[in-house]
C-alpha cells in the first residue's frame, strides 16, 4: 500500500458545537499541516478525508481498523464524548503519539487516570489557546522522533565493515529471496532485542522514570 511519507494524524473533532468551533478546528488542522503532518478527518457524512477512498476500502475489507493506518491522533477533548475514551484506548494499545487538546474544564486527565498508571509519555494533554498552539504542536511532533524506542522506521544510516566470510554468508542467505542483506540483519537484530530480557527490563525502567 503505497503512501505519502508524511506522518498521518487522525484529527478528532467532536460534533458538539461543530459549527461554532469550525474555525478553531480549521486553524488547528492548518497548523498541524504546516508542521509537516498529513491530517486525516472523518466528516459529518462519515466520509474519510485525507486517505484515498481506494485505500480506505482496502483497509476495511481486510478487517483492520483505519486507526492502524494513521501514525498519531489529535483530539479536541474539551467536552466529554464517548469517542474520546475509545480513541484513547486504541492510542494506548497501539502506542500512538496522541495530543489531547482542551480549552477549559476538560475531564481528559480524569479519563486517563483510569489507566491505573501514569499517563504514557506518548500522550500529551495540553490546554490550547491561539497564541500557544504553534508551541503545543511543535512539542507534539517531537513525539514522532523523540523516543527512538517507539520508532521502527529504519532511517539511521549505519556503515559497518564486515569480513568476506560474513559477506559470503549474507549473500548465500538472501540469494533468491525477497529479502535484502540489510533486511536480514535488521530482522536478526530485532529478534535479539525481543529475546533480550535484560534489555526489556531496562527499557521498562527507563520509561517509568
Amino acid at each position, binding site marked *: 500500500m503505497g503512501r505519502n511519507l508524511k506522518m498521518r494524524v*487522525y484529527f*478528532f473533532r467532536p460534533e*458538539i458545537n461543530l459549527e461554532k468551533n469550525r474555525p478553531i478546528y480549521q486553524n488547528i488542522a492548518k497548523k498541524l499541516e504546516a508542521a509537516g503532518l498529513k491530517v486525516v478527518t*472523518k466528516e459529518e457524512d*462519515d466520509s*474519510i478525508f485525507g486517505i484515498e477512498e481506494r485505500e*480506505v476500502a482496502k483497509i*476495511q475489507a*481486510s*478487517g*483492520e*481498523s*483505519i*486507526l*492502524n493506518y494513521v501514525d498519531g491522533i489529535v483530539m479536541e477533548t474539551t*467536552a*466529554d464524548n*464517548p*469517542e474520546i*475514551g*475509545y*480513541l*484513547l*484506548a*486504541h492510542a*494506548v*494499545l*497501539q502506542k500512538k503519539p496522541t495530543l489531547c487538546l482542551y480549552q477549559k474544564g476538560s*475531564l481528559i486527565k480524569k*479519563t*486517563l487516570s*483510569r*489507566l*491505573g*498508571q501514569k499517563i504514557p509519555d506518548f500522550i500529551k494533554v495540553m490546554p490550547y489557546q491561539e497564541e500557544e498552539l504553534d508551541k503545543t504542536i511543535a512539542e507534539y511532533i517531537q513525539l514522532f522522533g523523540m523516543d527512538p524506542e517507539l520508532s521502527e522506521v529504519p532511517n539511521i544510516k549505519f556503515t559497518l565493515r564486515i569480513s568476506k566470510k560474513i559477506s559470503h554468508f549474507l549473500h548465500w542467505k538472501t540469494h533468491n529471496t525477497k529479502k535484502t542483506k540489510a533486511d536480514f540483519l535488521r530482522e536478526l537484530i530485532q529478534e535479539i532485542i525481543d529475546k533480550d530480557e535484560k534489555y526489556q527490563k531496562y527499557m521498562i525502567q527507563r520509561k517509568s522514570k
Partner: protein
Amino acid sequence: MSQIRKKIALIILGGTVLIEDSPEKNAVITSKDVTPWLNKIPEVNIIAEVEPFFVLGEKETEVNIDHWIKAGKIVASHLKEFDGFVVAHHTSSLLYGACAFSFMLQNIPKPVVFTGSQVPVNLSQEANRKLFKKYKGLGIKANLINAIQVASQGPAEVAIIFGNKLVRANRAIKEKGLNLNLFDAPAKAILATIDFGIKSEGQHLKKTVPPFVFKPEFEKKVSVISLYPEENYDLLEWIVNKKPKGLVIQMQQSDLSPAQVKKITELQKDLPVAVHTSNPFLKKELPDLLIVDYLTPEATLMKFMWALGRTKNIKEIKKILEQDIAKEIGEES
C-alpha cells in the same frame, strides 16, 4: 458536560488468549487468572468500568449449553446494574453460544456483544510469534476494546464483533481460517462497521419495546446429521437408536429423494425432525416436513433446541421455528 461512566459486565467463557508474550501467561485458565489478565488490558478501563464474571477458562471442558445458560442467567440477573454485556468466548463454538443467547434473552434492552481471541491457548511460541507479527499484537485486545465500546452504546441485541464488523449473532456466518473479520452476515444484519469509531446503522439503535423475558429452557438431547445424496441410513438408524429428543438434518444436497422423504416422514412420527436446507422451494414441495430454509445452520440448531425446551408438540415447534423471536429471520426471506 460530564457523562456518567458506563458499567460493562465481561463474562468469560474462554477466548481470552493474548498474543503479546507466551500464551500460557496471557489467558484466563482459572478464575484466579481473571484479575491479572484484566490488568494486562488497562485500556478497557478508559472506556468503561468493567466487572468480570468467570464461567469457563481455557483448557477446561468444551463450552456447552449449561455454560451458556449460566452465562445467560448472569445477564438476566444483572440487567439493571450494567449498561451492556461483553462475552469473551472460544471461537469454535461462539456462534452457537451467541445464537443460544439471542433466543434465551428475548427483547434484551441492552447490548450483548460476543468476541474473543482466535489464538488457541496451547499454541507454540514460534506460531504465537508469527501471529503476533501478522496481527500486530492487536487480536483480543482490539476486539475487546471494540466490544466494550459497542456494549456501552451499541444496539440492544445479541451481536458479534471481530475485526471491523459488528454482526447480528443469529444471522452470522463464520469465515474459514484466520480472518480478522471472522464473522460476516447479510447486509441487513451488519449492525455497525468500525473506521475511527463504531459507525452504527441508525435503525439498529432503536430500543426494543416489548418487555424483556428470560427463557433459558433448552432441550439438550438433540442430534445433528448431515444428509448426502447417498441413501445410506445406517448412521441415521444409529443416531435414532440413541433416542434423541430431536433431530436436525443438515441437507448437503438441493433436493430430497422420494426414499429420503419417506424415511424422514417415518422418523417424525416419533421424533421431532427439522430439515435444514438452503433450497427455498423445498418447503412448498414438502409441506408435511419441518423444513427450515430461513435460518443459518447454527441458529436452526439452537432455535430447535430452544423450541423443544418449550414444547414437544411438532405443530407448536413448527410455529415457534417460523416465528421471528430475535430478528433471526431475515427480511429478505
